[in-house]
């Protein structure tokens, strides 16, 4: 269960690539875990590490000086493409990421992120370029992410507004998960089930 999402300020990790797929975010060989923990070192594994576990040179952006502790990723279009593995947001959160800024996300990745206290912010291409320029000119620039006001505060005092559906926002701010909400729908569910018998019985003929 996620913690309530609070306002925070952080410098930015820029990753320019578009269509970054979940096999890059967490390679499949790290999916043999049976818990959600310990995936920080699996994050972008093959972009960061050599076979022997040493850091690649030149270093991937995450491992460059001053990047540790940053909580905002600025990434290219269609981030999180590919598989449904929730290990991707687990690994991002384990490394310390709390918000991602892109022009779009793959559907399943976006949904998985929202369920793990990881805010996928969508901005238009012009705003995205403005933020890229900001980081390029001042790698130490800090942004303040305010979900309740749906705004990103820039160092010059200006604000970028972003959209998020009211339900996801409500859930993230409260730190409530969707299962908790669904469990409150028991009466409606019982009524629906009474009127809709199961279409299959997978237990029929089972050993």
């Amino acid at each position: 269960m996620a913690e309530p999402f609070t306002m925070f300020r952080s410098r930015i990790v820029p990753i320019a690539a578009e269509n970054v797929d979940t096999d890059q975010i967490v390679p499949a060989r790290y999916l043999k875990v049976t818990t959600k923990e310990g995936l920080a070192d699996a994050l972008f594994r093959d972009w960061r590490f050599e076979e022997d576990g040493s850091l690649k040179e030149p270093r991937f952006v995450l491992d460059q000086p001053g990047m540790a502790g940053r909580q905002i990723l600025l990434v290219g279009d269609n981030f999180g493409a590919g598989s449904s593995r929730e290990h991707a947001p687990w690994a991002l959160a384990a490394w310390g990421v709390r918000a991602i800024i892109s022009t779009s996300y793959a559907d399943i990745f976006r949904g998985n992120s929202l369920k793990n206290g990881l805010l996928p912010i969508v901005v238009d291409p012009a705003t995205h370029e403005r933020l890229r320029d900001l980081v390029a000119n001042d790698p130490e620039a800090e942004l303040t992410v305010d979900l309740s006001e749906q705004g990103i505060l820039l160092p010059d005092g200006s604000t970028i507004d972003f959209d998020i559906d009211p339900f996801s926002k409500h859930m993230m701010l409260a730190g409530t998960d969707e299962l908790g909400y669904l469990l409150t729908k028991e009466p409606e569910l019982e009524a629906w089930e009474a009127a809709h018998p199961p279409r299959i019985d997978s237990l029929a003929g089972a050993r």
Partner: protein
Amino acid sequence: MTEPRTIVSKIWDDHVVTQDPGAPAVLAVDLHLVHEVTSPQAFTGLRQRGLRVRRPGQTVATADHSIPTTPRDLPILDEMAAAQVRQLEDNCAEFGIPLHGIGSPSQGIVHVIGPQLGLTQPGMTIVCGDSHTSTHGAFGALAFGIGTSEVEMVLATQTLLQRDPKTYEVRVDGRLAPGVSAKDIILNLISRIGVGGGTGHVFEYRGDAIRALTMEQRMTICNMSIEGGARAGLIAPDDTTFEYLHGRRHAPQGAAWDAAVAGWRSLPSDDGAAFDKSITIDANVLEPMVTYGTNPGMGIPITSRVPSPVDQADPAQRRALEHALEYMDLQPGQAILGQKVDVVFVGSCTNGRISDLRLAASVLKDRHVAAGVRLMVVPGSDEVKREAEQEGLSEIFKAAGAEWREAGCSMCIAMNGDQLQPGQYAVSTSNRNFEGRQGKGGRTFLASPLTAAASAISGVVTDPRTLPGIEALAAVGGR
């Protein structure tokens, strides 16, 4: 007169349990497929909350992703994979979920066994913690991949919170030429719209070229909807669907069958139903497709040349292409035909069904894999394996020098030890050519079973249409 509806709207409307203002709909799930990789944390969550599995009879589990494809009487050597499989077995036993596990005659890739067992039926909502759940859309079901948090929700409530999806009509008219198959249709679509083209949408594949496809070919197309960015893709059910389904283990029987078919006939999109987006593909001019880059949208007709970064107007596209060609070690403007191949992989939830193996075998019969090429043939399920052995396909594969393996996801996701070595090139019938997808540093060309088998024989990327007797070969698939 009610407004014309798409099949997606009809299935959606049939499954909304309730919806609060401003909230997503609570959507009922008819069938939940479970596997070892994306479920352990969900079961842990149930235990922490003291919850049961609400509908074990609408849940089915198998082990497919992390299991070896070596003989079943050998142990799983990878301790983590073994623990994961053991945990699935324990979870299924504890929560009363039927498991088609290792050693079961109905074990296999989750998206192969669902249809095989007759669990996948028209009009259903089907989910699984796997993005290729879109496969089941071939039956006119609304089927999509979910994350592990959602797996937990479905286990606990047999529902999910979902937003009404947008619809994307993919019309494929005309007739495929010999040597061109379903895989080429879907790779062509993705090369046109890109890997994010279908984001937020459900594809509905329509048109006479789609209607002419067998169920297994339809599954190949729906399978890769996610590679076009769409969580789901479906095809309205018709007589081909009903014929495939009739008599399968979990299909309705007797009077219930007739009633079910009558209902299913009302599912196709109404005339005049509106789609949010639309694209048309002319099947008559399609060639075999092959990918050259590091996402499934980087595909070209097999006789074309690798595109050049300098021709890309968009800087981001140019960078992406430069990066991809560097990873693939390919030159801009080079022909893809004749590119050397180290490994050929025939299998996966995309192309690991019996008709796919028949196509590959039709090419490999009385031929031999080129020197230095490793050909792995991995059946999509234990049943596919038995069928292939009964039909003598396995003997054809072995005589051609191929490895004939046990069922599983294998080198499609390469988490079970079946993988490329760094720098190796593979022609693969699977669905993803991402960096490292088939093994760290491995390079993947996605293609059809015919193209894969033809390439295995010659040791280079090969156009299956250049094989003698291609007209007869292409007719082999069936089903």
